[in-house]
């Protein structure tokens, strides 16, 4: 099985990157390949980085409160590019009542403050598209 490749990205204008950087290291230490986009990424930039890197997972970190607008714009663009097998997850400050809304818009899981690092890594292993991981084995 190939190593899972995760693109961690900061959409929107918020500069709070503590969580994004911590999760990058944790996933790397958990044996995954991690690419960090840096700050202020537009939906276009995130989607094109995901394609270029052939990422299996996109982890979006957002603490600005703009998630209801920004996150659906990323998932919509993925859909438009025909990318349907990439797992999209989110970390940050997302009120519980927005979870349903985001899940309807293609966000697989939401990790709020206080999530143990291990839990995020385990979720990825269990839910990453297995075909993507196994294909490369041949």
């Amino acid at each position, binding site marked *: 099985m190939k190593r899972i490749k995760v693109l961690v990205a900061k959409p929107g204008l918020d500069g709070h990157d*503590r969580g994004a950087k911590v999760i990058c290291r944790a996933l790397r230490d958990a044996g995954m390949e991690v690419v960090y986009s840096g700050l202020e990424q537009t939906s276009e930039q995130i989607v094109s980085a995901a394609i270029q890197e052939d990422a299996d997972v996109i982890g979006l970190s957002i603490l600005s409160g*703009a998630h209801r607008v920004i996150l659906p714009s990323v998932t919509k663009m993925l859909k438009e590019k025909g990318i349907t097998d990439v797992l999209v997850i989110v970390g940050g400050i997302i009120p519980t009542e927005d979870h349903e809304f985001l899940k309807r818009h293609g966000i697989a899981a939401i990790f709020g*403050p206080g999530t143990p690092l291990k839990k995020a890594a385990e979720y990825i292993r269990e839910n990453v598209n297995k075909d993507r991981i196994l294909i490369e084995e041949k």
Partner: protein
Amino acid sequence: MFDSNFVKQIKTKKEKWQEDQSKNVPERTNSSGIPINLFYDPSNIDQLNYDKDLCFPGEYPFTRGIHNTMYRGRLWTMRQFSGFGTAEQTNQRYKYLLSEGETGLSVAFDFPTLKGYDSDDPISMGEVGVCGVAIDTLKDMELLFEGIPLDKVTTSMTINAPTPVLFGMYLAVAENQGVSWDQIGGTVQNDALKEFIAQKSFIFPPEPSVKLVIDVIEFCVKYVPRWNPVSISGYHIREAGSTAAQELAFTLSDGLTYVSKTIERDLDVDIFAPRLSLFFCAHNDFFEEIAKFRAARRMWARFMKERFGAKKDRSMWMRFHTQTSGVALTAQQPENNIVRVALQALSAVLGGTQSLHTNSFDEAWQLPSEKAVTIALRTQQIISHESGITATIDPLAGSYYLEWLTDKIEEEAMKYIDRIDNMGGMIEALKKGYPQREIANSAYEFQKEVDNRKQVIVGVNQFMDEREEVKIPRFRIDPEVEKVQLERLKQIKENRNQEKVLKHLNKLKKAAESNENVIPYVLNSVKVFATLGEIITTLKEVYGVFKEQIVF
């Protein structure tokens, strides 16, 4: 502090005591990695010299406080960071807070404003008025302070790279109110360096960014004498994950950079240094925080006197604002945050702060509701009026533990400052990614300790309530805000004199190219309703933009 024979006796007795007692206590260290003894006694502070290291309140090195009467003379300013939606909505919140006993204003801007984008820039989509108040033109600023007399309140503005613009707008509002610049007081954060290190709302590369910081300092010294032109901030450094000692060291290193750059403009240190202010975080470890504040005051005074030759006491005063820690707030069992905030606020008061923001208990979820922000303000009022803590100055001075810890934090911070000095100063150090890497390391280590429960967080990794359903009064930004803001901006752009806008933006560009102080030119531009985005774009054409090197 003590007679040497007495200390010798104590040491002998202590050795005996240690032999007799069980030594099987687990080791403890604080956030700065300093091992903490089981207890402290006179032998731990036998080198402490009262005159040299502590002295009286209001006397060099000001360890015990900068004022000789401290809170008996004047309480700290209760200043709640606040801003959301449109300028009108935030204006209402300000009037509410002032009516509830708040004593100063503190403006939170939305992300587009912090990054120098107008609300109608495509990149601002979804963020207008969300994390703070949206300001595009002078019109918004007028609405923000409508009915608030700027000669009666002081205002702090958390703005960094675009400081010249927002500050220019504030000056213009004062003028419109008929208040002269020498009557207004307040602070702009204007701390570019910590943006590269931690907060990450940078725009221009480090050198021009610092140049703009110094422009504001120089302008204020000449024309706005009661204004604090920079708030040298450790808060964001700490929130990004640093330890207390790193927070102290990186903040002071930033401050040293601004002081030497301002001196390079032929400004006398005793002219501008009295207007510099600092800003720290009050985190969970109670004594470590108090020690940090005291050490900071002593170190700043010594740097100003010894490194820069300051002669006036006021130049050596470290006046500082404190905010309780945002990252220490938990989303789980959020009511517990009220207690955390109270303890953190107490450490700030025992540390001698001049101004304080207490966080609201719901901030791990949202911008604070009115209920939550009122409790936060009441917390300060209870500390100041009920607890008795304000009766005497620096009441913990002389504590064996606290004095030892104050020295130790200073020592740890000095190691970092020396390292940064050896790299050629903070600008060089941050270009190498040094403080960024140190902070990221500390943040990751901390999180690992939380995950393995070495670091207990009540309600998160111990004493959890699995069935908990968080119930807090919700505070939401109406999506209509964006529409209202876009419409107002459109109206202004249609109705202003375009020719004048272009003329002043051109002059601004020329001033930036010829390395003049740009503040007067920015001021003229905002007065003819040039937008924030237009002014910042003009400056970007001259200074370029910063792309950060990715470190994790």
